[in-house]
């Protein structure tokens, strides 16, 4: 097992970069798990507002009630200094004064001078509230123009605007598994090739250095035995990294895998093998290790952006998706999406996607074998 031991010794020297990749991935996952846990459904934003009704009419009271039903009403003394302090210390987002004559102006179809508003800056909340009031007044004006009385128009507006819009989240996570929105398995499509190319490729390149390979070929070790030992070393490394990710996943999830999670585990295993084969091909085709990190970034980032790892699949254009279908990460992501509920779960499709990944494994392995025969055969033709 001389070559196997050599593999491990060289790997030990190259592990620093790999460890950095793994650590950054796990750190990212922990952060996303902690911060994303509560943002799983859509709710209307409510802003904190204080209202001063100087008109004091049934129409103005209707507006106050309408706002109160949708936002948080805060009681503030109607004093310039008190309002400024409340805005400064963010106790309120908006101070609205319904000016005297509001009801009359509403009846006359006027829109100027109805309100006086105060806020700190042109914030999101300010724009939202301005739009809210404009929509309310505009709707009443439309109803009056349509022949309704003011009281009826206010009623109608209240009913019309209370009809909410159904919002469906594009990536709606189901269940609490790691296949969900925190992206543990999704981001693996970026990190696994990165770890493999940064660690496995340099080891294989070192072992394939022409001078030392020449010396090895002159020795009594059989090429098949040497290749098998390198294969064994690579397998141990890939399995270790994969197991580390899977074990870390259990800790992040807080419970052992169950149900459909196992599909994700199988999917990640297949993708780990694909990543190792990509690293092998990179090692065979790269003449020098100087450009290795550049190549790793091009492959990992390129594949991630084309295959819906960083940008959700739904947001990708059809042409990008078509291009992505030629990459293994696309099918890896498709499997994950099906398992986490973003796409419709269809077992036949799921198995076929996994089959496509297996086909990638076979194709990459065939190319690697061919390259090995052409470039690294112990007996050369020329």
């Amino acid at each position: 097992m001389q070559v196997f031991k050599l593999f491990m010794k060289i790997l030990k020297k190259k592990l620093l970069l790999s460890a950095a990749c793994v650590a950054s991935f796990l750190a990212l996952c922990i952060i996303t798990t902690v911060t994303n846990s509560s943002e799983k459904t859509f709710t209307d934003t409510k802003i904190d507002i204080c209202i001063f009704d100087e008109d004091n009419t049934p129409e103005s009271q209707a507006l106050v009630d309408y706002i109160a039903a949708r936002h948080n009403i805060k009681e503030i003394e109607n004093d310039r200094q008190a309002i400024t302090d409340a805005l400064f210390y963010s106790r309120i987002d908006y101070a609205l004064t319904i000016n005297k004559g509001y009801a009359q102006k509403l009846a006359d179809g006027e829109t100027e001078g109805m309100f006086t508003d105060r806020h700190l800056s042109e914030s999101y909340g300010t724009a939202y509230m301005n739009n809210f009031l404009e929509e309310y007044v505009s709707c009443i004006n439309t109803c009056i123009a349509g022949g309704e009385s003011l009281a009826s128009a206010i009623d109608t507006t209240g009913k019309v605007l209370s009809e909410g819009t159904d919002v469906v989240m594009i990536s709606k996570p189901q269940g609490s598994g790691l296949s969900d929105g925190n992206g543990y398995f999704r981001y693996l499509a970026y990190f696994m090739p990165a770890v493999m190319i940064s660690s496995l490729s340099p080891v294989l390149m070192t072992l394939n250095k022409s001078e030392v390979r020449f010396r090895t070929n002159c020795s009594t070790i059989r090429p098949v035995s040497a290749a098998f030992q390198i294969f064994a070393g690579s397998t141990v490394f890939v399995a270790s990294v994969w197991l580390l990710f899977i074990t870390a996943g259990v800790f992040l999830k807080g419970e052992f895998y169950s149900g459909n999670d196992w599909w994700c585990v199988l999917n990640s295993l297949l993708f780990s093998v694909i990543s190792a084969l990509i690293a092998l091909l990179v090692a065979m085709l790269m003449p020098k290790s100087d450009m290795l990190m550049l190549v790793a970034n091009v492959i990992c980032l390129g594949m991630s952006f084309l295959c819906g790892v960083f940008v959700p699949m739904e947001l990708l254009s059809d042409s990008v998706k078509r291009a992505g279908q030629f990459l293994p990460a696309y099918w890896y992501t498709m499997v994950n999406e099906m398992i986490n509920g973003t796409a419709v779960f269809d077992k036949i499709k799921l198995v076929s996607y996994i089959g496509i990944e297996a086909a990638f494994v076979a194709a990459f392995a065939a190319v690697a074998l061919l390259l090995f025969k052409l470039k690294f055969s112990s007996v050369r033709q020329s």
Partner: protein
Amino acid sequence: MEQTVVKIENLVKRYNDLIALDHLDLTIKEGEVYGLLGPNGSGKTTTMNCLLSLLTFDKGNIEIFGKPMSPTAYDIKKDIGVIMQNVAVYDELTVRENIDYFCGLYIRDKQERRRCVDEAIEFVGLEDFTKFYPKKLSGGLLRRLNIACGIAHKPKLILLDEPTVAVDPQSRNKILEGILQLNKNGATIIYTSHYMEEVEQICTRIAIMDKGRKIAEGTKDELKHMVKNTDTITVEMNDLPDSVLGQLKEMPHVYSVTYEDGKLVAACSGGKHNLIRILEVLQKNDLSFGRVYSEQPTLNDVFLEITGKALRDKED
């Protein structure tokens, strides 16, 4: 009777239209330091690669230790050591780990291997550097490590392919002494180089190669006797009249005389006392002269005379 260690018969290797080895025959006996001398591209390294079964060939036979050599002839390979021109070690391993690794490709037994590694380290004088990584070693020490990796398993046949390229003179001498020591210890050596001085210094028998062919073979003295030139006499002098130059050209055994840049150069073929006779002619004509020296023919002269070209470029 000395056993034949290497026998190459009628070896032909073609790269498309280029004939790299052209019906090459070589026989190397046990205990020899056999030099393969030739310019770049003459086929030395191709011969080595064919010999090690690392390269296929079109025609011919190769036998080592009386057995046909093949890529799977591991019983032969175990007794062969290879030291190449380029240093072939792992930068990620220490000196000791490197030697141990390459020795381990031949010797499985841990204790025996440890002994062999210790002896190899001692042989090349790297005792103080066993924990150093190759990048921390000087060029000379690196070459010594390269040699240690090739000989640690105690091979009976050692192939050295230009092991002193880009090595300082001190390290070169150390390496050459080491090679002679290995030969004394019983190893047969095949040494390729285009440094004729080295080949002259250590090789007991030499083959001169050009364009894939062996154009001459023998001991260095035998090779020098193959050429017309027996000695070249150089006389430094300020002036040489044409009449005297004519007299010198008429002398017996002098086949070429030139006078350039204040130097009279006379190439002689055979005969004795050529130097005395030339000086007598100069004295008779009242010509004064400065330094006088006579040189024996070199292997470069042999190569020059056989092929009509120098063995290596002057800048080498």
